[in-house]
């Protein structure tokens, strides 16, 4: 019942794309060797025409995606066709070039097209791999529920810390305040943890801000204090604080991974779509220049 976009209707569009590619390759191979194998022949024009039409249609997905009332096929069908025909485009246009490249607008258009297709392939791989990971990482919870749990743990940490000397309250508060989630595109994509914490200094020394990735610094600090604690009530509170810090670490990892996967699912579009516009511009320049200098 649930069918992935690659498997859509028994891979209908894969077979269409394969057939299209085979016909083009066959036509190219059977071409009269007397003529140069480039865009200037009748076959070249035909391949170029097919390529240009495909590019326009592929770019039209952006419009179809936003036509929410459209009854022109399902969006899933469009995306499935978009993937397979987009891959076919690479072969068709490469044949159209006749493998003649140079420092000109024609090759620019070709390179941009390759960039769009490459980013699209990345997108497909991400779309196929990441949703399952995203779902597994959240373990049946929503992001709102995870952040809710985090807020609850933070509140409990502050309450438990309140039973200890004031420096622990400061510690819990700063661990909370200096936790970083996201923090820039690169950090988001790498899943980097740039959290910090203000650690109380040892034996009367001044407090210092240290990096706290994976809440490591807090956990280390607490375990060190715990190993030296002799007061029963204090040990109890420290143990609680420790287990809260550990739970915090797990939740933060989940949230960070969630944000990372979501970022990857979106970032490729920031290449795919703008370069598509560049491609359309280069394509127009390519077509105009070809016809003007005919």
């Amino acid at each position: 019942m649930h069918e992935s976009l690659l498997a859509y209707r028994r891979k209908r569009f894969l077979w269409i794309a394969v057939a299209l590619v085979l016909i083009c390759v066959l036509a190219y191979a059977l071409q009269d060797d007397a003529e140069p194998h480039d865009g200037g022949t009748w076959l070249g024009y035909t391949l170029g025409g097919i390529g240009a039409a495909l590019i326009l249609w592929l770019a039209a997905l952006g419009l179809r995606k936003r036509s929410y009332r459209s009854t022109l096929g399902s969006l899933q069908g469009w995306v499935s066709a978009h993937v397979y025909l987009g891959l076919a485009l690479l072969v068709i246009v490469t044949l159209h070039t006749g493998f003649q490249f140079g420092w000109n607008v024609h090759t620019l258009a070709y390179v941009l097209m390759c960039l769009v297709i490459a980013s699209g392939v990345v997108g497909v791989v991400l779309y196929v791999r990441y949703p399952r990971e995203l779902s597994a990482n959240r373990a049946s919870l929503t992001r709102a529920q995870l952040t809710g749990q985090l807020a609850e743990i933070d509140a409990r940490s502050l309450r438990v810390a309140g039973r200890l000397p004031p420096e622990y309250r400061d510690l819990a508060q700063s661990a909370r305040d200096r936790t970083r989630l996201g923090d820039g595109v690169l950090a988001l994509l790498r899943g980097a943890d740039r959290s910090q914490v203000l650690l109380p200094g040892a034996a009367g020394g001044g407090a210092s801000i240290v990096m706290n990735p994976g809440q490591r610094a807090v956990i280390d600090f607490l375990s060190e204090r715990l190993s030296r604690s002799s007061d029963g009530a204090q040990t109890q509170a420290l143990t609680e604080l420790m287990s809260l810090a550990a739970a915090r670490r797990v939740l933060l990892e989940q949230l960070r991974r969630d944000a990372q996967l979501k970022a990857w699912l979106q970032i490729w579009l920031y290449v795919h779509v703008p370069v598509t516009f560049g491609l359309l511009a280069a394509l127009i320049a390519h077509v105009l220049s070809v016809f003007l200098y005919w």
Partner: protein
Amino acid sequence: MELPRSSPVHDAAQMSERFKIAVIGAGPGGLSAATHAAELGVSHVLLEQSGAPANTIQRFQKRKHVMAEPGVLPLRSPLVFGPARREEVLAAWTEGLAKHHVNVRYNAKVTNISGARPEFVITLAGGEQILAETVVFAIGLQGNPRQLGIPGEDLPCVQYQLDDPEEYRDEAIIVVGVGDAGLENALGLHGHNRVTLLNTGTEFDRAKEGNRNAVLQAIDAAAMSCYYSSKAVALELANEAEQAQAPYVFIIDIPTGQARLPAHRVIARIGAVAPRKFVESCGIVFPSADPTSLPALSLQYESNVQGLYVIGALGGYPLIKQAMNQGFEVVEYILGHKIEPADHPLFVEKFRRLPLPQNVDAILAFIQQRVPLYRDLNTLMFRELALGSDVHAPQAGSVIFRKNDYSNSFYVIVQGSVEIELGDSDRYRLTLGEGEFFGEISLLSGRRRSGTVYAGAGCVLLESPRREINKLLSSVEAVKRVLDQQFIARAIRAAFAPQASQEDLKPIADRAQLKRYKTDEALFHEGDSADTLHLVRSGSVAISRMLGGREVVTSYLAAGNYVGEMGLMGGTRRSATVKATVPTETVCLDAASFSQLLERNPRLRDAVQATVRKRIAANVEMQSQPQAGDLISFLLRQGLGEATDVLLIDETLCVGCDNCEKACAATHDGTSRLGREAGPTFAHVHVPTSCRHCENPQCMKDCPPDAIRRAPNGEVFIGDNCIGCGNCERNCPYGVIHMETSGSKDDAKKAVKCDMCSGQAGGPACVRACPTGAAIRVSPEKFVEFVSRAARSV
């Protein structure tokens, strides 16, 4: 005898006054009645227990838009009323009361009414008695808040409602009652007051999950305190030592003894006392014990007690305009004037194109006489039913409804006949004639139509919507009995003996029983001896078996299917446990009846055996996928047991682009009716917050203007006549209904929810807009198949 004229100002020294009309309750109906009496110069008194008119509307949120449904009904009242803000409505009424010098007595709580026309004795709290020739009951259905019932409950610090939690600061406030009302009050107050909750038990299980969690969190964080297993004992003025903390003390019993809690304020939210007991104590008879049943009234709104009239919600008319019209009319009737009811022109319009004589009362009487089912109804009740119904004169051969339509209205044949086409592969037709009815199967089960109905020549039909019939069924036992009997006979025929006549099946139908099961109640257990077969008439059931010491759900059956056939066909022991997943009704056949059916119809044995084979195969399939059972259990908990169409998201495909929500918003005035991310997930199957289009929708239950309907394609939708009361939002167990303004901010809020994109070509936009195929809609027939596939892909 000359009656004394009422004076606008009540003279307290006068121990008992005598009026022509005493109106009890200053709601819309009562206000309208008293003002009309004042306008006509009739001696009257309006008794209101609270301190102001229109108590319910007073309690509306500030600036709330008050609707004036039904729009087609003209208003008949000396008071002004139309769709407007709460403040405007109240101001207009207050002005009307002053202008006509209406004799209102506020804070006059009636404790007893005795006597009959022309001498009623009305006793007020405090013992004062008022004499009246006639009494108009206009007290509504809200009832009075249940009192604390302890010494000191009259102290001014006790209140039974909380209008604005922001009004109170730094007070010690005790909230009694742990239902949603109590918890919501406590939560609203606890940020800036010291709130103590009093819980007579140890749990908060009567409240919604959200409220419960928020309160437990607040208690855990010591932001609110709570006494469990506690009981209110008394409320007193604080003694000198305690004065410093708060002016009052609330004394409670707790498991370890007694506690004295300082209090500025006590808020009691311990439910309401329904007015029915009081109404009955005045001699008014209700036709059944069903809490929704209405007192029997004459066309002039007179109850069985002569001179005692009932108008408004208590008489079954919950809308403001209806109640106001009745207030006007009841005064006219009391004075002996003959006026046409306000709905008269509506009937004229309704009957205009009928091939019947053109006189409203005559047509109504004619219809009622033709239809045995309605013959014993009182005329007012029938008129109400007819007003809510449609009369059709369809052309011969035209389709009334089609098999598998989701409509649920109920038809009676006033004139002519209809033909019903039943059966799947071998179709056959039955003819129903004058006075007979059809459509009850879908009405009672919430399921699709089981056959197609064609109009015969000269056919006139009365089509009543589900709500009107349900109102009737809860009030008139006889109608319910007849419908149930007919349902059983027709259900048996449709399932097992399509060719048999009604008479042939009568002995079997008479032996069949209608059984009701609560959620999770077992129809039978694995290992029980098998002696009955169940036809599921409404609701749905889950089938489970003990596997490795654990109960595993292996299948699910929606209404319209039968269960228990395996035991009857094969062995004598049940091979599985069958439990209701939602409140469920079944038609129960004993073994002897079933074997009689098998004898009658040689093909039935083959058909049932085929079903048995299919089920055994499905069982084996499900047992090889242990996670499938868990997935079924999960989905049933999400309400799929009563769903007809539900949106599910496969999380292994969803990239979180939210195009489904964007598509929903773009096709519905900019507001998405689905929350993609919210909602539970199990085994990568996510159930977003979106309407399940339940078979027996809870949202429909309590909709004053009957705005929630079911379209032929199954969609449960909210019509334009929604008055924005929010009942459906509260009643929906799945949280899928929201109150939204449609366009500009000034518009009144109305309920919105998924309408399955009715009227849009191509079906639901959410599914069509999903780029990866993650979003699909599933109906119960495909449910088990879906689970089996989903479980395999985990």
